[in-house]
């Protein structure tokens, strides 16, 4: 019931996205409401750390740029540093819906060659939030 309420609110807010319009918890709830099942952090971990073949050859894994330890800073292939992904060390993570959506779309496409499902997004955020 609660989840069903949050998703429309979230989507309504998405277009004129403001930084700080959401939180990791709200996103997990919204994405799992969309997929219809509970998030599985272990699956998120496997997806994030695993090597994939469907995407672009230079980016086989999320860890290519975000490193194997999301509590540490990563580095893009261009040399630019990337701030840590775990919200426990970087509270700015997963607080802007449009930003999160943009990067899931791009990065899943680069690594997997397709977009991530709502279930996968919920799994990943749940795992990152547990660190």
């Amino acid at each position: 019931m609660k989840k069903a309420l949050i998703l429309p609110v979230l989507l309504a807010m998405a277009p004129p996205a403001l930084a700080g319009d959401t939180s990791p918890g709200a996103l997990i709830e919204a994405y799992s409401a969309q997929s219809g099942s509970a998030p599985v952090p272990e699956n998120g971990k496997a997806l994030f750390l695993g090597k994939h073949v469907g995407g672009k050859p230079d980016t086989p894994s999320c860890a290519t740029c975000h490193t194997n330890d999301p509590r540490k800073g990563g580095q893009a292939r261009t040399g630019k540093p990337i701030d840590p992904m775990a919200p426990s060390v970087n509270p700015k993570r997963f607080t802007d819906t449009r930003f999160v959506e943009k990067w899931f779309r791009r990065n899943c496409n680069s690594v997997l060659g397709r977009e991530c499902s709502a279930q996968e997004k919920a799994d990943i955020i749940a795992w990152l939030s547990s660190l």
Partner: protein
Amino acid sequence: MMNQSQILAPDARAARHQVWDVFLRLFHWSLAASVTVALVTGFLLDASWVRLHLGAGILAVILVMARIVWGFAGPAYARFEQFLPRPGALRAYLREHLAGAPRRRHVGHNPLGALMVVALLLAVLGLGATGLAYLGGGLKTGPLATILPATQTGFWSETHEALAAIILGLIVLHLGGVIHESRRCGENLARAMVTGCKEARSGDLVAPHRPARPILAAAVVLALLASGGAAVVALSGRPLQDPPVAAAEFPAVYADECAACHMAYHPALRSASSWQALMARLDDHFGEDASLPDETGAEITAWLTANSAETVDNRPASLWRDLSPLPVVALPDTPQWQELHENVDPALFKRRAVYSRSNCAACHRDAESGWFSPFAISIPKENTQ
């Protein structure tokens, strides 16, 4: 005792010629030092030494200017009229020299040595002029910045380099000539350039006395320096035409969307058509998906086009202006970039703080300004993090 030295003194003086006056000797060794510094910094060291290179070059040109004035106002052996050979005299000297040894010794410059002096002075002036042109056209600094277009950079830098190679050759010949002459005449010519004196011998070709006019010479040199300096300051102060858009004026959308994965590349690094080709394929962007909503993409494309290489007169813009738009390549994959960086140790690009050759801003502090001045290069140290 007293008497003895009084008797000896005139004899000793008579046995020696005072050939090179003190200004001329100072000039000679300062020029040797400044040209050496300029050659070493120019040929052997990287662009971060450019300040020392410029300082040495400017000093050399000022010295030569003063020497030219001294060539009209100095004492006998410093004067051009004394040593500039006429073609006939040069031919006669060469003939004598090839036949055996010239019978008579030139106390000042012999005709071949004189030619060398003129060639060296001209080469330094040429190096100064082409250096200034390179600085103006290429680096948009100095008095010629608003006069010469950046597209001429290649011409001026190549001419400057060719002259530097020529002066290096002249110096080798000059040293060879000095050693050869010293052996032949049994006197140390290099030491004569330190002490100023040569021993007198019978049959020497001596120059008729000419009074030096040091005050007049100093006044002329000062006047030249002051007017030259004023002209340089006035010209250097003129505002540049078509400078690259300042990084502070980049629109927020560009910084947000195009500086997330890498530095904000300056729009003047590519032509309008190259930007349009790149923006049309953001979903396949150097091996990554950088796609954007259409209207955001259009906004960025319009801004990049309005500030592209064609609209800017500086060196990086002129280097990559004619890059063919397709395929979309990174600048490090172009021959221009590879030529500029051929002396940069490839291992530097693998350092963690650099990581990618396209991470220009890691080494070029002014990369986001679009200038890439050799004054602003600092290679990051290997970090231990």
